[in-house]
């Protein structure tokens, strides 16, 4: 990506300071990052193997070319496989083009290069966002596991293939698995990603998953197992402004990556998609500029104003162009609020927020001959506030185990520029014949590999840390303030909560030295399953040996880096254990309280004399009165020795 690592503090204007996790972790040297996705475009410069040494000897994977003789691996892209039998079971017989790990969609190349692409100078999208593209672990090796194919009823990746890929990836020897896909939350052992990642962490593999794009509604987060790192999406300090100027001289700042621009200074007739409705189309569909809903006679030569639905990245531009529009204004609905996304449209276009959209529609409805203009897009850095949560980013609470806060963390996931397939145009629209090496896309799919890349760095720096220790380090060092030192906001300018950002915005330099971690072993997860009432016979099927559930089991006492009590009745004592992974020191507890809940910590200080030493504490939560915290209340626990700040969100709701 060309900006996000700077925004995350790993570099500054291309300069990498000695204190950067990149330098300390040798850019993720020899970590192996696997990606379950749409495959990979092997010709991308992000995956060239210049200056890389031999493939790590522990690697047991293969380059499964299938029937694609042009596909190749190298010392960077050390493995590729494809899994299509589960897809075939749903789709019917598959032709020979399905026998390849090649990425014909773009998503897999984008996510894999975000996690671990090489440095590639002069990467940009039609000149916008120009910079050196970099992955989070640029010197790590990568392996692509293609499990996603053209959609069937909107779904691309099937459980049977996902499970097959996990099974083989564990065997191949990956250190990190990046999984930017998901479905509706289900009990853990009816969920292929939860099952696969459960087996992966047993072998020390960290699994990073996207939380989903079903926000901003509550309880929409997916990939909610406690052994997964679940990632939300937020913005960074880069914009691609393109102004919408109306005939009444009002102007609104939108976002765009349109390669084409309108004739400078010329105003064009403006038409609402609703007014351009085809005779047989519904008003609601026309307003969204859905296929075959627009009347070309009403659109030709005009700037068309379309309403955005849940998904910004649909073929509205193609519909507008086909109907004869010269430009398009994409206006948010109320739910998507202020979240505006720069996309590479097929015509001059600008995406504007909800309030500005209302102004544009009001102007059209109140003017006899409405006119407008869209200024060419530009690249602007250092914007404020940043980050703020993306409206699309799925939110907690966790619907499977509400005692585990999800998502765990947020990372950049809006307008991310990374490698792309050259089998598709940048809009993935049918008649977009353009081909570009790098593209800008948005989603929790894009934030997930940022965290995967950071995990790769931590794996190189701390090879002895467990997956839970790495997750704890990432979570307890996260930030909950933006670049104006104000609390993180959502896309409607309200204060966001841990249900949006988990522990906060990822802070890679902090994660390399967290001081203390909340560690978990595989047995702790088995105890967690005991608490979910899996019986001894079932637990033995995972543990491969007799396993006895300990007597005192409670879901709230899983040694998780965040603390969630969804049904507080009276008071509850929650226990946690901290492990020293830093220097000897005395840590003191501080609680940022939440309305209606009293929180006390015992003991209030913990003295660590050596590395690896573990100390436990109890956090007692009490509702101040029966009416307190009827809705979720949010606070924070911070352990600090004056140098390290080990932060945990506290989320409580009274029963």
């Amino acid at each position, binding site marked *: 990506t060309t900006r996000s690592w700077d925004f995350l503090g790993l570099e500054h204007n291309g300069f990498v300071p000695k204190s950067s996790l990149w330098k300390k972790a040798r850019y993720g040297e020899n970590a192996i990052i696997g990606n379950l996705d749409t495959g990979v475009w092997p010709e991308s410069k992000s995956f060239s193997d210049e200056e890389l040494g031999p493939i790590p000897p522990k690697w047991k994977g293969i380059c499964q070319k299938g029937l694609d003789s042009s596909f190749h691996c190298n010392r960077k892209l050390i493995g590729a496989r494809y899994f299509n039998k589960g897809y075939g079971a*749903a789709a019917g017989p598959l032709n020979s083009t399905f026998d390849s790990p090649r990425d014909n969609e773009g998503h897999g190349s984008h996510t894999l290069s975000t996690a671990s692409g090489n440095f590639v100078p002069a990467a940009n999208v039609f000149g916008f966002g120009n910079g050196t593209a970099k992955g989070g672990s640029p010197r790590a090796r990568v392996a692509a596991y293609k499990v996603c194919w053209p959609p069937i009823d909107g*779904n691309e990746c*099937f459980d049977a293939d996902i499970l097959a890929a996990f099974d083989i990836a*564990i065997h191949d020897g990956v250190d990190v698995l990046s999984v930017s896909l998901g479905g509706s939350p289900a009990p853990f052992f009816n969920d292929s990603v939860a099952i696969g990642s459960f087996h992966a962490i047993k072998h020390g593999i960290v699994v990073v998953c996207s939380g989903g794009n079903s926000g901003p509604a509550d309880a929409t987060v997916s990939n909610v197992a406690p052994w997964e790192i679940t990632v939300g999406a937020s913005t960074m300090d880069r914009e691609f402004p393109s102004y919408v100027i109306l005939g009444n001289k009002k102007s609104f700042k939108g976002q765009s990556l349109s390669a084409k621009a309108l004739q400078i200074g010329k105003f064009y007739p403006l038409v609402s998609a609703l007014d351009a409705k085809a005779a047989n189309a519904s008003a609601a569909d026309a307003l969204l500029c859905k296929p075959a809903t627009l009347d070309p006679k009403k659109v030709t030569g005009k700037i068309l104003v379309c309403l955005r639905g849940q998904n910004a990245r649909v073929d509205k531009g193609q519909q507008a162009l086909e109907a004869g529009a010269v430009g398009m204004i994409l206006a948010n609905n109320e739910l998507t609020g202020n979240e505006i996304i720069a996309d590479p449209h097929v015509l001059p276009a600008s995406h504007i927020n909800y309030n500005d959209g209302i102004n544009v529609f009001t102007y059209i409805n109140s003017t006899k001959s409405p006119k407008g203009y869209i200024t060419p897009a530009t690249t602007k850095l250092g914007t404020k506030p940043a980050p703020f949560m993306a409206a699309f980013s799925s939110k907690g609470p966790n619907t499977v185990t509400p005692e585990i806060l999800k998502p765990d963390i947020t990372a950049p996931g809006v307008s991310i520029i990374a490698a792309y397939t050259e089998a598709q145009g940048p809009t993935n629209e049918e008649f977009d014949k353009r081909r570009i090496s790098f593209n800008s896309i948005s989603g*929790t*799919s894009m934030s997930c590999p940022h965290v995967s890349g950071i995990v790769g760095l931590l794996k190189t720096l701390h090879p002895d840390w467990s997956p839970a220790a790495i997750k704890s380090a990432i979570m307890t060092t996260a930030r909950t303030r933006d670049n104006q030192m104000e609390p993180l906001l959502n896309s409607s300018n309200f204060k966001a909560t841990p249900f949006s950002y988990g522990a906060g915005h990822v802070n890679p330099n902090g994660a390399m030295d967290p001081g203390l971690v909340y560690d978990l072993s595989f047995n702790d997860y088995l105890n967690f399953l005991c608490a979910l009432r899996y019986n001894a016979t079932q637990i033995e099927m995972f*543990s491969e040996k007799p396993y006895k559930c300990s007597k005192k089991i409670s879901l709230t006492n899983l040694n998780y880096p965040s603390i969630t009590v969804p049904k507080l009745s009276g008071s509850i004592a929650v226990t946690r254990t901290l492990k020293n992974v830093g220097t000897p020191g005395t840590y003191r507890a501080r609680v940022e309280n939440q309305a209606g809940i009293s929180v006390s910590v015992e003991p209030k200080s913990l003295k660590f004399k050596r590395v690896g030493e573990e100390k436990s504490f109890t956090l007692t939560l009490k509702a101040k009165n029966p009416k307190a915290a009827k809705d979720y209340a949010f606070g924070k626990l911070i352990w600090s020795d004056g140098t390290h700040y080990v932060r945990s969100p506290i989320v409580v709701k009274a029963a």
Partner: protein
Amino acid sequence: TPTFAIKKSYVVYLGAHSHGPDFSPLLDSERVTQSHYEFLGSFLGSHEVAKEALFYSYTRHINGFAATLEEEVAAEIANHPRVISVFLNKGRKLH
């Protein structure tokens, strides 16, 4: 008139393998796959029918298989004490 039950694809999850440290991908995988055929065959009536229905045998770390089954057979398999879960091979979305 014969009626045909609708078949769907399912994942049958059996937990973990207890391969020893000298796991041989070729030999042990083959042994595991045969055991999956046998297990499924006990519900479908024969090893051969099982071979036709089963399209993935997870042999390395995850113990389980994916097969095309009738709903009633899937429900029957789910009740077997060796089985942790049986679930539909559903589609998931890219995020």
